[in-house]
C-alpha cells in the first residue's frame, strides 16, 4: 500500500493554459522521489497542489490525513524579522505541535547538527545563502515531517555549497525517513539523491519515464562519477534531454 497517490486529470490555470494532464504516480513511505522536467512545465504547481496550497484541479491526491507536511521552497522564505531560532520556534508553536514535548530538544539537536548554534540569534538577512538554506532545512525537519516537498531548494547556490547541502539532506533523510518529492531540473542532482526519478514532459506535463535509480547508497558524491549513468540514460532516451541542462553532453570527455 503506497503512502502517497497522485491521480491528476488536469490542472488548468485561470488564463486557460493546461499545465498538468493525466499525471499519475504513487510513492511509498520513506521513498525519495525526484521530479525532473523542463522549466515552466508545472513542477512547482504540482507541489502546490500536493501541499494543498492550490485546490483548483481535477483529480485526486491522497496521503494519510494526519501526515505532518514540510515544504522547502526555491527561496528559503525565512521570516526576515525573526531570528533563526524564532523562525523555527514559530513553526514549533503551531497548535498542531503543542503536544509534542520533544520539539525543543529536537531543535537544539538540529541546530547543532547543521552548525547553526552560533547563528541562532542572527536575522536571516545577516546569513549567507547556504546558511539560510541550512536554517530552512532545520525548519523542515524539526517537525518530523511524513511528507517533505522540495522545490529546487539548492538552485542559485554555488556548486560546493549545494553539494554540501545535498549531503546534509541525505543524512537527515536517512535519519528521519520522510517521503520526499524533490523537484529539480538538474539530472545529476536527481541521480545523486533519489530512489526513483519521474521525468515530466513539456506542458501539459505527464510522466514520460519512471526511472528507478540503479545505484546503491551511499552514492559517490562527486558529480563526474554519476556522469556515465547520465550519459547512458540520455543515449537510450534522448527525448529526456529536452529542457534539462547537463554538465557534459553524452559521449564527450
Amino acid at each position, binding site marked *: 500500500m503506497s503512502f502517497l497517490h497522485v491521480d491528476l486529470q488536469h490542472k488548468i490555470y485561470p488564463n486557460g493554459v493546461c499545465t498538468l494532464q493525466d499525471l499519475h504516480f504513487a510513492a511509498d513511505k520513506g521513498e525519495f522521489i525526484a521530479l525532473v522536467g523542463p522549466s515552466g512545465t508545472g513542477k512547482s504547481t504540482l507541489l502546490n497542489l500536493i*501541499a*494543498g*496550497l492550490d485546490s483548483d484541479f481535477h483529480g485526486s491526491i491522497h496521503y494519510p490525513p494526519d501526515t505532518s*507536511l*514540510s*515544504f522547502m*521552497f526555491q*527561496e528559503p*522564505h525565512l*521570516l*526576515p*524579522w*525573526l531570528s533563526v531560532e524564532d523562525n523555527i520556534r*514559530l*513553526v514549533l*508553536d*503551531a*497548535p*498542531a505541535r503543542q503536544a509534542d514535548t520533544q520539539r525543543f530538544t529536537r531543535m537544539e539537536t538540529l541546530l547543532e547538527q547543521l552548525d547553526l548554534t552560533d547563528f541562532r540569534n542572527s*536575522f*536571516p*538577512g*545577516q546569513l549567507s545563502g547556504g546558511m539560510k538554506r541550512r536554517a530552512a532545512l532545520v*525548519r523542515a525537519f524539526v*517537525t518530523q515531517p511524513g511528507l517533505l516537498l522540495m522545490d529546487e531548494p539548492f538552485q542559485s547556490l554555488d556548486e560546493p555549497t549545494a553539494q554540501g547541502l545535498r549531503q546534509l539532506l541525505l543524512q537527515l533523510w536517512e535519519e528521519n525517513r520522510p517521503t520526499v518529492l524533490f523537484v529539480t531540473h538538474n539530472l545529476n542532482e536527481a541521480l545523486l539523491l533519489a530512489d526513483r526519478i519521474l521525468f515530466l514532459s513539456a506542458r501539459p506535463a505527464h510522466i514520460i519515464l519512471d526511472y528507478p535509480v540503479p545505484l546503491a547508497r551511499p552514492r559517490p558524491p562527486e558529480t563526474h562519477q554519476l556522469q556515465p549513468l547520465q550519459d547512458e540514460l540520455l543515449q537510450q532516451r534522448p527525448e529526456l534531454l529536452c529542457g534539462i541542462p547537463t554538465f557534459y553532453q553524452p559521449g564527450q570527455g
Partner: protein
Amino acid sequence: MHPRYSRLIALCGFVLLWQVAAWWLASRSLPGPLAVLETLWQQLLSGELLFHLGVTLLRVVVSFTLAMLAGVALGILMGSRRNWDNWLDALLILGLNIPALVTIILCYIWLGLGETAAVLAVALNKIPTVVVTLREGARAIDHELLQVAQVYRLSRWQTFHQVYLPQLYPYLFGAARNGLALIWKIVLVVELLGRSNGVGFQLGNYFHFFDIQGVLAYTLAFALIVLALEALLLRPLERHVNRWRT
C-alpha cells in the same frame, strides 16, 4: 555627525533665527523666545496650561486610537479583497476630500456640542488617510510568506501577528506619524468651534485679546510635546521593530 546632534543643531538654529528676527523687528507682534518662555513658565505655575494641555491630549489619544483601529481594519480589508475595494473606493475618495470643517460642523449639529461629537469629528477626518496608507501595505503583502504559514499550519493569530502584521509595520508607522500631525491640527479646530476647554479654546481666547505671547507659549508647549513623543516613543519603537534591517 550623529543624527541626534544634527536634529538638535537644527532646532537651536531655528530658535536663534527667531530671536534675531524679534530683535530686528522689535514689534509687539513677534515676541522673542525668552518672553514666550516666561509666559509659558507662568502658565505652567498657575496650572492652567497643564489642564488645557491635558484635556487636548486626552482627545488626541482617543481620536487617534479610534482612527487607527478603524483605518487599519478598513485598509487591510480593501487592500486584500478586490470586492470591498470596488465598493468602498468612491466613499474613500469622498472622505479624503471633504473639508475637515464640514465634518466638524455636521458632527456638532447632529450629535450636539459634546465630547462624542468632538472626538468623532476628529477621527472621521483622519480615518481615510489611514485607510489609503494601509491599503497600499496590504496590496504589497508577500504571498509566499503566507504560503509558508499555511504549509506549516500556523494558527490564524500566529499568521496575522508574526507573518502578516510585520509586513505592514512601515505603513503603520507612516500612518501614525501623519495621523498624529493631522489630529493635532484638527483637534484644535474642534475645540475652537465647540468646546470650553483645551488648547484650541485657549488659543481662541488669546486671539480675541490679541495676546500673541500667549498664543506662542501654547504653541511652544505643543511643539515640545510633539518632539518628545517622536523622540521617546515613535523613534525607539520604530528602531526596535526594524532592528532586523541591517
